[in-house]
């Protein structure tokens, strides 16, 4: 893990030098090493298997949903989190559900991690009455008791998240924080800086997780964002603590979020995180990602978070190939079951169309 604070800016610049072209992207990130064996032993078999299962569920759910989309059962925009699962899986487990959570439109995994059931989620994607948002939100707008939404306008969720942090501070909920997940593309929006400024001014307990998946739709990050590395520069500019996370590795992410939790619970100040990751798919389901070379994509797929964790757990003796396959199958069956559930679910009755536009007093 790489930790950078404004006090020790100097020695970090080197290690965080970031890719400027696709060619050297592979080897650009260097994260501080941590004792993986020790972390594996500390977390233990049960916890790690549970985390693996959560990632398998998210992956299988989205893969099946993609098929349902291709068959015409799901419409609109659909942004897969495939490839990035380690970040939110680790984060939610370390911090627990009882915080406020805001995300971009790439929000299927977060909803699942926060307790939205696969059936409820798939019904929403199918636009059915028993969906997560009664069929009104779809793929980009998912909610839970603690999830304030997937938001469809790039960076639109960022001030919402600092508002939740303001509530936490005002209502003195000292064990809670507000999480804001955003992509590297959102860093180009003005409201992001306004929000970080306000959070920094007022010491709002908001954790900004910039998931840098290298692309804002089809535009490479270095063609859109002048900051490099993004997280470090922003943290330094606003005198905040910043962290770089290896989002392609669950254990590394987990280790980082544990450190971050310790820090934020003590200091109750905003934190900037840049999580380095890769999305395996295009920006959305309608994007074939022709801007990426085959070699590049192949290299990325070799870093699959699922394969990384599987190998680590096999190495630790917690898992073998057969049990991994069984878990994958189990997750696949849950996803298939959710599709059957959604197909069998009722469409919204048109009579409810105009309900909830305004809340009744």
């Amino acid at each position, binding site marked *: 893990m790489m930790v950078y604070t404004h006090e020790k800016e100097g020695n970090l610049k080197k290690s965080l030098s970031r890719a400027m072209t696709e060619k050297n992207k592979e080897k650009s990130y260097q994260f501080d090493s941590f004792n993986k064996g020790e972390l594996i032993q500390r977390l233990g078999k049960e916890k790690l298997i549970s985390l693996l299962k959560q990632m398998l569920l998210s992956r299988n759910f989205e893969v099946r949903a993609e098929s349902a989309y291709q068959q015409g059962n799901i419409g609109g925009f659909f942004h897969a989190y495939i490839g990035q699962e380690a970040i939110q899986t680790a984060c939610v487990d370390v911090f627990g559900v009882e915080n*406020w959570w*805001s995300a971009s439109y790439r929000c299927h995994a977060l909803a699942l991690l926060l307790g939205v059931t696969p059936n409820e989620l798939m019904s929403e994607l199918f636009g059915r009455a028993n*969906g*997560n*948002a*009664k069929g*009104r*939100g779809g793929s980009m*707008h998912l*909610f839970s*008791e603690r999830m*304030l*939404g997937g*938001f*469809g*306008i790039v960076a*639109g969720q*960022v*001030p*919402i*998240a*600092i*508002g*939740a*942090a*303001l*509530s*936490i501070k*005002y*209502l003195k909920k000292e064990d809670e924080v*507000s999480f804001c997940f955003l992509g590297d593309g959102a860093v180009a929006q*003005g*409201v992001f800086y*306004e*929000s970080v*400024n*306000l959070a920094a*001014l007022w010491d709002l307990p908001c954790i900004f997780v910039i998931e840098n998946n290298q692309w804002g739709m089809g535009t490479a990050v270095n063609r859109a964002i002048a900051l490099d590395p993004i997280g470090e520069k922003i943290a330094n500019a606003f005198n905040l603590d910043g962290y770089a996370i290896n989002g392609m590795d669950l254990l590394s992410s987990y280790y980082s979020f544990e450190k971050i939790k310790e820090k934020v619970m003590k200091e109750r100040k905003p934190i900037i995180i840049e999580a380095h990751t890769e999305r395996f798919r295009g920006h959305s389901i309608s994007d074939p990602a022709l801007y990426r070379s085959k070699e590049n994509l192949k290299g990325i797929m070799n870093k699959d978070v699922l394969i990384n964790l599987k190998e680590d757990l096999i190495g630790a003796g917690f898992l073998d190939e057969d049990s991994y396959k069984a878990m994958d199958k189990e997750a696949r069956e849950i996803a298939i079951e959710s599709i059957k559930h959604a197909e069998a679910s009722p469409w919204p009755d048109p009579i409810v169309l105009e*309900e*909830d*536009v*305004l*809340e*009744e*007093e």
Partner: protein
Amino acid sequence: MTEMQTVDTREAIRQALDEEMERSSNVILLGEEVADYNGAYKITKGMLNKWGADRVLDTPISEAAFTGMGIGAAMTGLIPVVEFMSFNFSFVAADQIISNAAKLFYMSGGRFSVPIVFRGPNGAAAQVSCQHSHCVEAIYAHFPGLIVLAPSNAYDSKGLLKSAIRNPNPVLFLENELCYGDKMEIPTEEYLVPIGQAKVVQEGDALTLVTHGRMVDVCEKVIEEYRKKGIQIELIDLRSIRPLDITTIAKSVRKTNRCVLVEEGHAFAGIASEIGFQIMEHCFDFLDAPIERVTQKETPMPYSKVLEAKTLPNPERIAFAINKVLNR
């Protein structure tokens, strides 16, 4: 007998905020210059001293961020009252108002309420020129999910603002800088004005004149001239733009059979356009003459006071429209 007090609109708004802050500790005020400076127009005078810096928050000049922050706080337990120094500055935050505040209750399947009030001066003041004079009601009333209020006097300002703060939906509360100093007798005791009810300011049988906000005062002076001539014009103050009280309007038009609509803002896709259409839907067979509208002319607001007076609805243009509808 009800005990009365004479206050200006500024004080009436301040009292509404103060009483609602007393009523619920979750009501907070935020905006540019609302705390230390006591408000750009002194609406929040003394509030920082009384309620403290946790509840009266000076924000930086970041409309998009503090608007979204208010919405996020509203979703998570607080009741923010956000001041825009001018509603023209809300355009910077339009994405938050339109894409988030207006839509979150619906698109979350009814899970998250957004109990927030945005308030501040709307429309023209005295020669504040092109970028500080726009009337925003037609823009925001367009969106399902928003409540838009435009009181014309101190009594309604206080009662409606209190209702707005207690309402679980996002409310845009449009004030007028030029009316902050207008004095009026209002009850000392607490009262509410319900959202969604227009007010018949003056009864009449010759014609229905519908308006809102600062134009109520202008229209009152115009109908007074007609009254002197024995022509009784019924004047309706909308108070609530959305939800629109079409019942009160239709009832009046069915009685008078003639209607003129006056709006401080622009004609194209404006509030008057909407009301005119709804009158056609509800009162087509009752109309004895085509409806006329008097609005701001289709120009940005010019600075020169000569031009400013010409682009805004004024007594001459209103009287011209009334005469036309009365066939005089």
